[in-house]
């Protein structure tokens, strides 16, 4: 992303202020709902079109375009962005852009790298340079991310006649004016970049993770809106678990579609536990949301205990009437900080996740490991709170002896795997430089195909794979050689028909709270077994691993999903169990799927692939 050049010797602003609805138009002029947020001040053109996002206001119901907003107009700049308005599509464009950027920046910062949203390495998409956002794509109560269009499509619709809550009956509801909907769909798009294979339903958790994680991001971002946060803290007397807009998702949408309440909530019914019976991805995902929120809430309570003691002279009993604004301000700051910490923790987990077949348990382990690496001393025991919250909901990682923090860390493989060799080490240096450049303000996206920096076809030549690999060719070759040499230890197969794909590689920079710069390398390998596709409804059995190494090439963590024909007998046994689980999952889906008896035979073989569609997932 390129910053605008300075003019007349005055440095350009680092951030661009923009206005949004903090929740959605349902709250209207409620204090705090008109929030001002800022995003990085990149060069933008009317749309807005930036380096990674472009807002295209095409309406397929009306078959027309709407005027794009030019956020660089002095009139708009002077007022810090257009005022919230339902009637002006240009405000809609601004809000979609602002919230999408905010979400994207949260990922950039937490992961320490710039996430690219183009689709040039995606074979079934038209090679779009940016993620496209269509604020009024169609008429319908739905919004979804479409990988093939490399776009997020937002619908608009009329509220139903009865029980529309604060909406007017028949009022037009725009999904693109809901912070939660935008953040949720953006997260889908980003997760699909980080782990493209998480679209394949190979176990009940995979799609549920996609949904739950998207809700987690939307939810935790609520706590960055100070005005609304303070108001709600005052009103709920610091109990953020009260059913307020802070813990509810997509209120307007929920009411407008006749649900009589917000679409989803961060709170679960006490005693809800994960079971096979909870299968619908949003419903299953909401257990994950509730667990993370619970962990967040416990940590928040620990962090504000001292403030409450000070404010109440040690009694802990808040006085009658309004709380002191100073107390509310301080508590709000703690709530924001805790939310940001949990948000970062969740996002960072991605570097420690397997490339395929994720489960909620994997997510917990990844989150704990990532956070442990960055913040060994966990002052408020945020990790402990998380573990407890997951335990209470019956989310148990497979294959761990206990739920103590040490046993949840991924397996340390320093003594089991040889270090990456010197060839790789020197290439790693190059990759570092490239990654550094991505953060440089003068760096511009390379749009041309120039030499070795290109995404390569390396070892991803398997027919039917949607993705090409996004790593430097030479490095990919080195990593491939390493994986080949250590296949058994990595749980990979050496069968000639199973290529080892290098699915991704990136260096990670992070600053630990103590100021220490932490550098890690994360490489992902994957393999596919297409022999049983028919039995598995068209979704192949995949294996692979994520390897985390330190900057000197020492391998530290291995997150493995082994292959059946791995040379290591223990891995092979785990893989067989995983294959059996996938088959059982297909059966369970068939039973739930009302389409089963009516589907034509030709579509039967690919029925699991049909689930890989956010449009349907979000309710057609």
């Amino acid at each position, binding site marked *: 992303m390129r910053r605008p050049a300075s003019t007349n010797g005055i440095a350009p602003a680092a951030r661009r202020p923009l206005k949004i609805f903090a929740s959605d138009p349902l709250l209207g002029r409620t204090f705090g709902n008109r929030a001002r947020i800022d995003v990085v001040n990149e060069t933008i053109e009317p749309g807005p079109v930036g380096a990674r996002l472009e807002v295209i*206001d095409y309406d397929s119901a009306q078959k027309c375009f709407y005027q794009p907003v030019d956020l660089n107009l002095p009139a708009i700049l002077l007022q810090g962005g257009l005022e919230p308005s339902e009637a*002006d599509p240009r405000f809609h464009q601004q809000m979609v852009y602002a919230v999408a950027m905010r979400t994207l920046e949260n990922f950039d910062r937490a992961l320490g790298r710039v996430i690219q949203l183009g689709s040039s390495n995606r074979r079934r998409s038209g090679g779009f340079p940016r993620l496209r956002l269509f604020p009024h794509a169609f*008429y319908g109560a739905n919004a979804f991310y479409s990988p093939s*269009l490399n776009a997020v*499509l937002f619908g608009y619709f009329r509220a139903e006649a009865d029980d529309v809550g604060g909406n007017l009956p028949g009022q037009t509801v725009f999904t693109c004016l809901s912070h939660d909907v935008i953040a949720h769909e953006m997260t889908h798009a980003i997760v699909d970049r980080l782990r493209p294979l998480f679209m394949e339903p190979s176990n009940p958790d995979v799609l549920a993770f996609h949904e739950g994680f998207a809700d987690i991001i939307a939810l935790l971002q609520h706590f960055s809106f100070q005005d609304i946060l303070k108001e709600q803290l005052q009103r709920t007397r610091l109990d953020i678990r009260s059913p307020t807009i802070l813990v509810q998702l997509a209120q307007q949408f929920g009411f407008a579609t006749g649900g009589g309440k917000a679409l989803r909530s961060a709170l679960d019914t006490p005693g809800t536990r994960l079971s096979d019976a909870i299968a619908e991805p949003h419903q299953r995902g909401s257990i994950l949301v509730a667990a993370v929120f619970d962990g967040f809430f416990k940590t928040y309570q620990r962090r504000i205990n001292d403030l409450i003691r000070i404010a109440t002279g040690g009694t802990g009993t808040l006085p009658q009437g309004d709380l002191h604004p100073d107390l509310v301000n301080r508590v709000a700051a703690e709530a924001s900080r805790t939310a940001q910490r949990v948000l970062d923790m969740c996002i960072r987990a991605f570097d420690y996740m397997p490339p395929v077949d994720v489960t909620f348990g994997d997510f917990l382990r990844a989150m704990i490991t990532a956070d442990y690496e960055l913040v060994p001393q966990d002052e408020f025991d945020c990790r402990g709170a998380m573990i407890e919250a997951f335990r209470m909901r019956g989310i148990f990682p497979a294959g761990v002896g206990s739920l103590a923090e040490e046993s949840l860390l991924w397996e340390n493989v320093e003594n089991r795997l040889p270090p990456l060799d010197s060839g790789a080490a020197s290439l790693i240096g190059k990759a570092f430089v490239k990654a550094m450049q991505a953060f440089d303000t003068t760096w511009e996206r390379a749009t041309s195909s120039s030499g070795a920096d290109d995404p390569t076809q390396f070892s991803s030549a398997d027919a039917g794979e949607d993705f090409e690999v996004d790593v430097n060719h030479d490095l990919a070759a080195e990593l491939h050689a390493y994986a080949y040499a250590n296949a058994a230890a990595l749980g990979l197969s050496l069968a000639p028909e199973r290529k080892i794909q290098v699915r991704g590689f990136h260096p990670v920079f992070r600053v630990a709270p103590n100021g220490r710069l932490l550098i890690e390398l994360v490489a992902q390998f994957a393999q596919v077994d297409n022999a049983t596709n028919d039995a598995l409804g068209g979704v192949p059995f995949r294996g692979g691993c994520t390897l985390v190494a330190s900057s000197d090439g020492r391998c530290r963590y291995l997150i493995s999903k082994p292959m059946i024909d791995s040379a290591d007998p223990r891995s092979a046994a785990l893989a067989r169990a995983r294959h059996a689980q996938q088959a059982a999952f297909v059966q369970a889906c068939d039973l739930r799927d009302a389409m089963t008896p*009516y*589907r*034509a*035979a030709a579509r039967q073989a690919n029925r699991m692939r049909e689930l890989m569609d956010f449009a349907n997932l979000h309710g*057609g």
Partner: protein
Amino acid sequence: MATTKKAAKKATTGGAAKKTGPRRRPTSRREISVRMYDVGFGDAFLLQIPDGNAVRRVLFDCGSIEASAAGGPMKGCVERIVRDVTDPDGVARIDVVVATHRHRDHVSGFDNAAWADVEVKEVWMPWTEHPTDKEARRIRELQSKVATGLSAALAAAPPAAGAAAAAEREVARGIVANALVLNNAEAMKTLHGGFSGRPERRFLPVKEAGSRLLQTPALPGVKIHVLGPSRDPAVIRDMDPPKGESYLRLLAAAAGSDGASASLPPFAHEFVADSISASWTFTSTDPEQIAQAGSLSDLAVAVALDKAVNGTSLMLLLEVGGSYLLFPGDAQWGTWLNVLDDAEWRPLLERVSFYKIGHHGSHNATPRRFVADLLPRGCCAMASTLVRTIWPDIPKSGLLTALLDKSTTVARSDEPAGAPQSFRVSPGVIEARVPF
């Protein structure tokens, strides 16, 4: 049918006070008779439960969407049933009429005028048929709106391109025809207000506590476990068709002329741009793809609707003495799951001695878990079904095989010749005897 039937009829004298004495052994042998009428693709099951010298009759459904060659048209089936429940005094009597759900293949027969003279004590329907219950009305209205819209949309649709698309549309048409309220209006009228004898209407499970078990003077000695449909909001959600783009399109189609209002421009005209902004990556195929991306196929919506209505199915487990007879209607996954996970009901399912195979033997109306883990060996099962060219996967042969593997005796209405010895087969009827 001729001789045996007549004898049976005489034996099953309705009036409890009558001391005519059984003329046929079965009643005295404490056997429940379950008769499956060959209605084609549909359900009609008549239970006769001996009660002292009397016999109690329960009719589960009476409907069909496609007659079979052997069974003949629905009218004949209804006449046959009415004849079978007519007592020697010439009055047709049924103690309880159960309409599991409002699909045509389960209720169409009730549009026959003959029912006006049948004396019925009680009519049971799922709670979603309750005339005044707010949630029930909401669900019904939603389902009927979608059905009407989908029907209109399918009628107006241009000819399908290609054989596969045409076949798919036929499947969808079939499903919608089954759900269309208009088609079933007369039948529902009978169920809600017809029959003689001023029957009491029950909408099950009732809202009040104790709704899981029903006992009624109409069926003395019979405990009725009401397994579904649940009133749990999580299960109810399955009764709602998805409300995405297609849904709104269909609502517009249902509303007819009102459809125009749906496509009112969302913004004032001055905001409409004439051309594409230069920096957009917008390809010529985008408009078409965007318009397509959000909409489900008509088939998918039809199936969602089918599932929604099947989800309202009344699922009953009749406990007579030591026997358990399971009638799941066309209950689907949501209801089944609720039952299989219920600590009290689960053990009861392990004792089932008669099972009416759900949804005409389709794959997702009988959970594998139920067959493999719970259904006891030697159970008797019946499937009322017909192989229709448009729905070749109903019944699912794998399911029937699984049942047979459990040494369950299975009879299919469309293959009377294949019914095991233990069933009594006469033209148009297969009868099972379940001791209790």
